């Protein structure tokens, strides 16, 4: 029982920190109209998991590697080609899902898609928490650059902001998704980044409050979702996402702009 309690505490702390980071990155993903791209990107984790399982390595490494490659691809398509990026991203998404379903063993597939209560060695626990907090800090630190590019690419470039900043955004997104995938699952992790940002957008009157609200909401919704899931024996991923959607609907009903 005590062991369970300790595990639950660990998961709550993971949910709080990964939720915080997801909420923070989500603000920029939504501002950049990359919600769909982000969602698709998260699914690319599936082939990564499959590869890692096949080669008997830590799935986290497979996820991280495949997401970083996909992040670069999405960025490259966005910046360097004239191809309609949403169409390519659609292809990327379905291809990843197809590869994942075919290659991941049946025993792992539900957890890969929808997340689980992870039992983690302590080094990994510390690694996830510190990474999530560090990435959140970087996002706050770089807010000005991201907002500048989002506001006017032309002006931002004239004032010395480089386009590579956007690649940084996607890379941070990829790492945050990798951190959260164990808990929330590949199919739902994209939603965890988008929903807090949408709710925050309904409340916020400035960029700063938008970012702060979103980070806070990401954290609060994830923790509440974990507690609910634990109470009623649900999978954590869908519980967190549905709770988020419920909060979003509330924000639509009660907040008038």
């Amino acid at each position, binding site marked *: 029982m005590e062991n369970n309690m300790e595990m639950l505490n660990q998961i709550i702390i993971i949910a709080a920190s990964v939720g915080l980071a997801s909420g923070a990155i989500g603000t920029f993903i*939504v*501002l950049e109209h990359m919600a769909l791209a982000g969602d698709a990107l998260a699914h690319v984790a599936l082939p990564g998991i499959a590869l890692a399982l096949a080669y008997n390595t830590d799935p986290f490494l497979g996820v991280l590697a495949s997401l970083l490659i996909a992040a670069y691809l999405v960025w490259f398509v966005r910046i360097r080609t004239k191809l309609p990026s949403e169409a390519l991203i659609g292809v990327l998404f379905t291809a990843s899902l197809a590869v994942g379903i075919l290659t991941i063993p049946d025993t792992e597939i539900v957890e890969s898609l929808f997340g689980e209560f992870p039992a983690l060695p302590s080094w990994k626990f510390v690694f996830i928490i510190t990474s999530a907090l560090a990435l959140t800090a970087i996002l*706050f630190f770089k*807010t*000005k650059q991201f*907002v*500048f590019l*989002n*506001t*006017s690419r*032309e*002006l931002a*470039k*004239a*004032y010395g902001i480089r386009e590579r900043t956007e690649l940084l955004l996607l890379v941070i997104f990829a790492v945050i998704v990798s951190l959260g995938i164990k808990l929330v699952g590949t199919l739902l992790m994209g939603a965890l980044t988008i929903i807090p940002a949408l709710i925050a*957008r309904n409340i*916020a*009157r*400035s*960029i*700063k*409050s*938008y970012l702060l609200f979103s980070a806070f909401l990401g954290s609060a919704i994830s923790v509440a979702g974990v507690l609910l899931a634990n109470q009623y024996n649900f999978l954590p991923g869908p519980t967190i996402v549905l709770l988020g959607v419920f909060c979003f609907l509330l924000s639509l009903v009660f907040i008038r702009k």
Partner: protein
Amino acid sequence: MDANTILKVENLSVALEGETIINNISFDVKKNDALAIIGPNGAGKTVLFRALLGLVPYKGIIEWMPNIRIGYVPQKFSFHRESPLTTKEFFLLQNKNFWLPVNQDIEHLNHELELVGLSSDILARPIAELSGGQLQRALIAWAMLNHPDALLFDEPTAGIDVGGEETIYNLIHKLQNERNITVLLISHDLNIIYKYANQVLCINKDMKCNGAPIDVLKPEELSKLYGEGAFYHHHGK
């Protein structure tokens, strides 16, 4: 480059995706000049600005005065309505401390807004909700915020009603006199150019003329630039 020259352009050519947009243009800009750039649509005026700002690759020489600060007011500017960016935050994009600006900077910002005739209560409003006239003034204040040596204006009048248009130019003129800044502006309006510019550069891919307005804005020069029958042809049959 002598001490009085703020910008020297030599044999500047810009090609975008294989198409030549600007071909072999050379000109100088002296301190405190007001240079107007004219030319028909698609003549490469905005691309010239973008080359001067280092936003597009080019061939030739663009040499600014060392350590120059440049302010830029782009032509088309629309904010995403879904962004909650406030006017104040828009100005803070230029500040080192975006999250926690010091009071001094906010006071300076209020002062700059006053100068362009805006009240400081627009700072709390979303920038996407400013009117066309307010936005144009805000963009000028934004470009002026760090006391630039040179200001680049791309069609300052676009989208502003005629009543407001005059004041935008008066404003630019005032800023030029009070702060000794050099102004480069793209314009279509010959009256404005006569009134405010001391140098005119006519381009249509190539350079068509370069000199004082009184010397170069003659019917024959303009018809060379815009084609026969463009401006100042009042002879009738």
